[in-house]
């Protein structure tokens, strides 16, 4: 008997194919804390056709592509599925936005963005494949393998 690990949802958004172990960070980047009232289910390390993955389901809320794109930093293969009445009405893969603001802390301790100035951290995409980002202020490129630890 096939046991459903995560129940299908009637309306809302399913973020699938999240890099395993990163579901909570995805929610953090999206600024979803659970206080919003929607039902949120998280499944981590689910074995799918292409190996392990995390899944996040948010009921009764359709996330816009733009707001979800920033998770491409830590979940480059994630897909966004918009569900209406149990049907996937929209599906697309995340793609990194050209500017990443207030999400990643610059790894350079001498960077102006790490001081007390009234600015948010800002990164621009230096290369899409492989994904490399560069601090808008000091031009430092963080090591993408350590990007998790730089999420604000």
């Amino acid at each position, binding site marked *: 008997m096939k046991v459903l690990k995560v129940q299908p949802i009637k309306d809302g958004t399913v973020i699938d194919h999240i890099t395993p172990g990163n579901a909570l960070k995805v929610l953090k980047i999206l600024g979803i804390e659970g206080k919003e009232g929607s039902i949120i289910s998280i499944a981590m390390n689910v074995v799918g056709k292409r190996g392990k993955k995390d899944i996040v389901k948010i009921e009764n809320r359709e996330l816009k592509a733009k707001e979800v794109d920033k998770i491409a930093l830590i979940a480059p293969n994630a897909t966004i599925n918009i569900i209406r009445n149990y049907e996937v009405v929209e599906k697309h893969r995340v793609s990194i936005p050209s500017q990443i603001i207030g999400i990643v802390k610059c790894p350079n301790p001498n*960077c102006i963005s790490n001081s007390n100035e009234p600015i948010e951290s800002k990164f621009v995409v230096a290369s899409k494949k492989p994904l490399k980002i560069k601090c808008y202020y*000091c*031009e430092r490129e963080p090591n993408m393998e350590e990007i998790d630890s730089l999420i604000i």
Partner: protein
Amino acid sequence: MNFKGRDIVSIKDFTKNEILHILDVAEKMVPIAAGKEKSELLHGYIMASLFFEPSTRTRLSFEAAMKRLGGNVIGFAQPGTTSIMKGESLADTIRTAESYCDVIVMRHPLEGSARMAAEFASVPIINGGDGAGRHPTQCLLDLFTIRKETGSIEGNKIALVGDLKYGRTVHSLAYALALFKARMVFIAPPELQMPSEVVNECRKMGAEPEIKHGIDDIEDIDVLYVTRIQKERFPDPEEYKKVAGSYRIDMETIKNAKDNLIIMHPLPRVDEIDPSIDATKHAAYFRQTFNGVPVRMALLALVLGVIK
């Protein structure tokens, strides 16, 4: 080409043609910089010179540049006497200063500070050095010197010598030289060699810099750009002495050098170049220092829109 209102934050913000235009304008400024001709080009303009970190050469040459063109200068040479000491943010200092001036020149210890200042200011920001980050006016005056001394930038084989890892000026200079397709040699002790990001960037731009450790064979070099190896980089003072000593340029080093070799140094120097070199025609470093003035005059006149 219109530079009016533009910020000078990083050399990478400029195309090759824009850089050449700046050098051309600087060329015309030389007699005024030398005091042989008088100018009132920037009469009525005020430059704010905000030095959050001391720097004799950069600050003096900017102030001289502004005054040689008939402009006025306000500002401070170190933050000790200002409200920054009371904890004011750089953003607020910039917003205050811009209400008193037409252009801001700044040096600040934090990397990216000039880029941030440019976001807050509506007047042009000229970066006079931001920590270990960029120092575009030094880069431009270096390019100006190479062109003035040798006639062109691209035809030369240029050796960058000394501390290539931490040296603020050499990274942007390497980038600019790659942009001009000059041949480059990076000569440094292994622990102070050019960072791989810089080398890779040069390669991506089509340059093929040679990496070397010794200054013994420089027969085919046209420009020797020497930088200071700092004591702080070495935990062991003996090791420092040994390394610094082996990169010292003296008459012996240049005995097989090209007749028209020029030696440059961003100054101040400590022991990197033996004073016996000063009297030779190879020594271009004092002329290089002077060139800071016409180049900075050109930048001020361009960003203020007085020259197109």
